[in-house]
């Protein structure tokens, strides 16, 4: 399945300023692995040492938070969008 991953401003420093990219994946976890394979520097910002999504990052499959689906095991479909939303504090 081709999945579009959206990368927020705060992480684009580690994605060569790329705002989105397409990867082939069957699950959210595979999509994230695909992203990290292309931009290895993103790993520390989207996955914790244990391989989970850390508490200051949310991954949304289309409009749904994957924490309330099946986490990284959530199945994806062709054309789905994965949005990475990381905490920002500026005001």
């Amino acid at each position, binding site marked *: 399945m081709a999945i579009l991953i959206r990368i927020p*401003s705060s992480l684009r420093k580690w994605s060569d300023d790329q705002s989105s990219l397409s990867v082939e994946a069957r699950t959210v976890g595979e999509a994230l692995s695909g992203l990290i394979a292309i931009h290895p520097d993103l790993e520390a910002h989207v996955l914790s040492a244990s391989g989970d999504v850390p508490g200051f990052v949310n991954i949304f499959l289309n*409009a749904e938070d994957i924490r*309330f689906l099946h986490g990284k095991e959530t199945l994806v479909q062709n054309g789905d969008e994965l*949005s990475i939303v990381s*905490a*920002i504090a*500026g*005001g």
Partner: protein
Amino acid sequence: MMQLQPEEITRYARHLSLPEVGLEGQLKLKQASVLCIGAGGLGSPVALYLAAAGIGRLGLVDFDQVDLSNLQRQILHTTGNVGKSKLDSAHQTLSQINPHIELEMHPVRLNRDNAMQLIQKYDVVVDGTDNFATRYLTNDACFLLKKPNVHGSIFRFEGQLSVFSPHLGGPCYRCLFPEPPPPGMVPSCAEGGVLGVLPGVMGCLQATETIKIILGAGQTMMGRLLTYHALDMKFRELKLRRDPGCPLCGDHPEIHELVDYDQFCGTASHQTTNDMHPDEVTVQDMKQALEDPTHAIEVIDVREEEEYQLARVEGARLLPLSQLAERYQELDPEQSYYLHCKAGVRSMKALEFLRQQGFGNLKSVRGGIQAWSYEIDPAVPLY
């Protein structure tokens, strides 16, 4: 029974002719009280529009002074007020806009000792702060006091908006972000930059949500997160859910009172005190080190390349904190280093990191290049 004065009827005429507001709604706004935390980028449009809309009692919390570098986005403040307190400046602007409202200025840093007392006097809280510790503090205090928290945050070209009303069944900030990023992972706007108009867009959305909450009109952003990206000019709406495992508003809460937010966010810093930290040196020490080769000290600038282009100290070597983990081996563990950044926070982080890697002779320059500009060389621009 509260009424509008004739002058107010004319002033609010365009609200009064909206069926969703009308006289009843305008009186609700007049009877309402709102506390805006922060009188900066977000707080400026929030306060300006809420004052103009006729919120009866508008409180602002901020301890800072107006800096020239604020004016690119903080439209409450003017060039003539640079150096004055932000709240004096805000009071001046807001009282000009609407003399019919009560303005309450709280020139303090919001902390666990004053947050409950301040927030409990208001109906709605607008979070326009610039740091994670105050955001978690605001969230927790609002939950404990059952106050809606109109959340906005910005970074570079991107904004996030939601309304946290866990007392009405919605999620809280902790449901969205259970933990803050490690210190230093997400740069502040001072380090990373921010488009000046961005807080204008997000602050206006916060003001809109605040007015809707008071009027009881429309659908608030409770349970939804709006993300805005200025470069793509895209708004996206994402669903937020209350987390049953949330330590604050979940089914088995563990947090029943305010906690230590600097500790929670790992931001406890010596910079909040006037005492020199044993690992710090002054800019005078840095000057001597640069001028006198017998010191055998090298000065490392840990700011980003873009900042280095704006202002630099001659003789300092650039090695950004963000690249330190990959590049620290370019440094010699036996060499003595003075580390400096913009204000002295990042250089302490660099010092702590290098010390973990076995470096022994390290000092962090207190106040960074800002202090250098103030005390040593005014030709170095402040930014």
